[in-house]
């Protein structure tokens, strides 16, 4: 279920060496350029195919190859996902004897990064659609294809994993033709794993994906499809030049960002490094470095032009990146606050989509309210903070951004339940909705419909696909999707269903703020905004989890779930029964001292809510919500 993508350059920013331009000194000729991406459902073999292509074109020698060359973050390899966009230039001598310049733009597959995917697609003329010969079309296959079609890309299907005993290439071809309406006649049959059919893919790209037809003489228009930070070059833009050209020394202007910089370096990407060039011209893909200190000055989707000869219009489709999912991230030990801030700062250097601002919580102390593109994005940031910066974190329940229309007519967006205006000032509230599509074996249709019903979904459409599978479309509230939808879907379909979604705007909804009270004191870190129908079961479930997670203390602790002062669920942590050392033997008080120290440490790690000590695990237990 979890997938994403990311950019060779990103990794490069951290560890890339300066590589010479060996073998890449092609003469500029647009008709020999092919800009393409690879789209696929997770596990259909996108990264492996990319590896084989790099190998085949000779830019990577076999000895340099590790699996998933383009996925250079530890996390990407481990999870088999791509988190950022990557671009690599490869020279390829085709069967027609001509040498071509292939630019592979790798894209993340996950919905969290939909906008970034769309910008990467906009940088291409074609897309190689990888479909697993035994799995067939999945939800993300469709989502990606529709997006590619939106960008008028030439889609070239490739059937992968034909080496598997369960491969049914003909059935899958039929599925693609029926569901997507793409002719699969003569499409390459490939085993990326075994290196079979790779040359056919390359030939197919050269012969069928159109060359760019950009105007070299027009004012510069370069589309930014990714950004990252390089310690030596500053913030770098990955671009597709759509018109004109740019060279070192040019003064460039970010058309949406409205700031200007002097170009210090332009070039193309090699798998393991930079290949600086004199200029980047219309139709080409590469990077622009301009001593930009803050990555926030580079917006994915923005258009770069020249200050002294600006384009009349930016390229279409620019949207500022808006976080969709928020949560609070706190250091488990308050002393780590500074380290956490430094770590977030470092991560944001390479990830303009991550936002954070300081936040204080009675229960958790000092921390940050962080915004993410989606759940996967959130999970990845959390894991990177923990692994790469060795931080112990407490994370609050993820929440979406609600729209509150106040009685005085004002509209406010709420990303933190604590900031919700008082009930009497709220006229109505709206929540973000998604268009969801699920592809599942027929047997699980009932289970999925039940799940979507449970999750307050509205049925939109159902369609039978070849191979006994069904495509279901639902409108779902985003806050239900971020809650435990993935886990539920997985367990109810034994992992056979695939799921994808796209945001579709706000809808009015009967939402309430659910508060948790410990010994009568409200604990803001545990407050959530929920649909009224959900409030009772959620309140009861949180109360039960807290009861198990909060250790017994000197006095009984009532735990209450309440809506606007009305208690809807209650649990009790019984008082501590016994906590005493029988003996201090022979004047040796060290054991007692050690025990006390240990308990003091333990208490320090807990957060005080009124007179109640709440361990981080209690917050975690509530957050996990399984």
């Amino acid at each position, binding site marked *: 279920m979890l997938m994403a993508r990311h950019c060779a350059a990103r990794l490069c920013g951290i560890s890339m060496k300066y590589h010479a331009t060996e073998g890449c000194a092609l003469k500029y000729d647009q008709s020999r350029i092919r800009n393409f991406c690879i789209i696929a459902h997770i596990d259909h073999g996108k990264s492996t195919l990319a590896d084989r292509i790099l190998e085949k074109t000779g830019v990577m020698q076999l000895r340099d190859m590790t699996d998933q060359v383009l996925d250079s973050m530890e996390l990407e390899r481990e999870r088999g996902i791509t988190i950022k966009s990557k671009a690599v230039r490869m020279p390829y001598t085709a069967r027609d004897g001509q040498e071509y310049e292939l630019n592979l733009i790798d894209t993340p597959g996950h919905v969290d990064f939909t906008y970034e995917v769309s910008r990467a697609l906009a940088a291409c003329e074609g897309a190689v659609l990888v479909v697993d010969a035994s799995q067939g079309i999945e939800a993300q296959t469709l989502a990606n294809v529709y997006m590619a079609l939106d960008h008028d890309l030439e889609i070239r299907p490739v059937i992968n994993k034909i080496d598997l005993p369960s491969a049914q290439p003909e059935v899958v071809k039929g599925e693609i033709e029926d569901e997507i309406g793409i002719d699969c006649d003569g499409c390459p049959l490939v085993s990326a794993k075994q290196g079979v059919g790779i040359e056919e893919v390359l030939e197919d790209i050269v012969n069928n994906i159109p060359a760019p037809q950009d105007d070299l003489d027009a004012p510069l228009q370069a589309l930014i499809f990714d950004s990252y930070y390089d310690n030596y070059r500053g913030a770098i833009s990955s671009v597709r030049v759509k018109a004109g050209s740019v060279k070192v020394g040019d003064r460039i202007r970010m058309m949406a960002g409205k700031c200007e910089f002097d170009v210090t370096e332009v070039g193309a990407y090699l798998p393991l490094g930079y290949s600086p060039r004199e200029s980047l011209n219309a139709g080409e893909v590469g990077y622009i470095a301009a001593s930009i200190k803050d990555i926030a000055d580079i917006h994915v989707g923005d258009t770069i032009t020249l200050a002294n000869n600006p384009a009349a219009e930016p390229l279409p489709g620019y949207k500022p990146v808006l976080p969709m999912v928020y949560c609070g991230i706190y250091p488990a030990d308050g002393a780590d606050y500074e380290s956490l801030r430094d770590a977030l700062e470092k991560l944001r250097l390479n990830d303009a989509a991550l936002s954070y601002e300081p936040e204080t919580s009675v229960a958790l102390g000092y921390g940050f309210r962080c915004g993410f593109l989606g759940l996967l994005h959130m999970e990845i940031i959390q894991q990177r903070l923990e692994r790469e910066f060795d931080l112990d974190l407490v994370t609050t329940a993820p929440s979406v951004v609600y729209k509150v229309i106040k009685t005085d007519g004002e509209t406010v967006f709420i990303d933190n339940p604590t900031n919700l205006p008082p009930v009497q000032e709220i006229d109505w509230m709206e929540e973000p909705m998604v268009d969801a599509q699920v592809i599942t074996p027929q047997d699980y249709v009932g289970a999925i419909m039940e799940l979507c019903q449970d999750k307050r979904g509205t049925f939109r459409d159902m369609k039978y696909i070849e191979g006994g599978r069904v495509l279901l479309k639902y409108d779902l509230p985003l806050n239900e999707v971020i809650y435990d939808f993935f886990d539920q879907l997985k367990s109810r379909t034994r992992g056979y269903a695939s799921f994808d979604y796209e945001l579709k705007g706000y809808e009015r909804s009967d939402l309430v703020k659910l508060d948790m009270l410990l010994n009568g004191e409200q604990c803001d870190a545990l407050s959530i905004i929920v649909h009224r129908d959900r409030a009772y079961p959620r309140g009861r479930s949180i109360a039960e989890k807290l009861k198990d997670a909060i250790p017994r203390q*000197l006095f009984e602790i009532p735990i209450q779930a309440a809506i606007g002062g009305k208690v809807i669920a209650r649990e009790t942590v019984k008082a501590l*029964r*016994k906590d005493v050392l029988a003996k201090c033997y022979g004047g040796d008080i060290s054991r007692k001292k050690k025990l006390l120290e240990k308990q003091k440490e333990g208490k320090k790690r807990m957060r005080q809510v009124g007179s109640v000590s709440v361990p981080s695990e209690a917050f975690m237990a509530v957050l996990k919500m399984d």
Partner: protein
Amino acid sequence: MKPLSLYVHIPFCAAKCAYCDFASYPRRETDWGRYFDALLDEIRFWSGPTGFGRLSESYRVISMFIGGGTPTLVDPERIQAVIEACRGIAPFDGAVEITVEGNPGTLSPDRLAVYRRTGVNRLSLGAQSFDEGLLKSLGRIHTAGQIGEAVAMARAAGFGNINLDLMYALPGQTMDQWRAALDAAVALDVEHISAYSLIVEDGTPMAARVASGAALLPDDDGVNAMQRAAIARLAGAGYDRYEISNYARPGYACRHNLVYWNRGEYLGLGCAAHSLLGGCRFHNPESLDAYLSGKRMLEVTWLTRRDAMEETLMLSTRTVRGLDTAAWAEAFEEPFQMGREAALERLQRGGLIEIGDGFVRLTPRGMEVQNAVVLELTGDME
């Protein structure tokens, strides 16, 4: 002259008990001679000029405790030599309390006579239980019958101050067995009874049994019930509880024991012995071999004001007399209540402490959760 107490550790026993993780070594008879030589050397050291001055010039000994291990296992003449040597450290007070700890199975009239001649006036017997089955499962070397015999023998030798150690919360121990043990101890008409709840220490055979499920421990409520039964039964027989685990007839509270809780000064001699002297804590090595190789005075720690406050709080609240708020104010130059108002109020309202007449003391219920109460009162000391 300041009061000083002496603790002497005898790290030898006939067999290791199942719950024991103290410094105590069975089958080391061949080292007894070397050990007592080393011990006497250490006593001679403390009898001369030390980093704390010459102790005899500023201290007098008010209590001495010879513990173990099983001090009654070794030749009584060795114990006699140790006590005699200790008189060189500082003069003994006229009313000095000298306790020897022993196993009921290791006593004899001759042995007891030697102790008496040397000035030993208190005998502390590790009875632990009166149930043969429980004694066996604990790995004790004595029988229930030997406890009564030992008390009778001690009386005959002239001991007028006898303690029995009892243990509860043992695996498999029923409330009835515990009541029977209390009855049996009361019937022996001793002056002092200690009732310790079993602590399962890591690395002991008992811990392994508990981990494997072979030994089942009572739950917290069960343990509390046993402690309450002890308080009630012993009070009925004229034993006042004066500390979490200690009960005595009027006038027989163990002076040595109280020194620990009141942070009086004490010097520990021998393997694994701990000291609080001249504002610092230190101890000898746990290991017999390390002690024999000459290692002494480890982890010398000068106590800060905050250490002293924490210790005072954690130790004095174990006693029924409680924390002396006037003494606190004098020692630390700030009222005990300062910064603790809310916690004290909450604890008092919850029936865990009593405040008044210059003392803050834990109620019987408060003592069941003493660690947590102390933690509540230390919190603001940071």
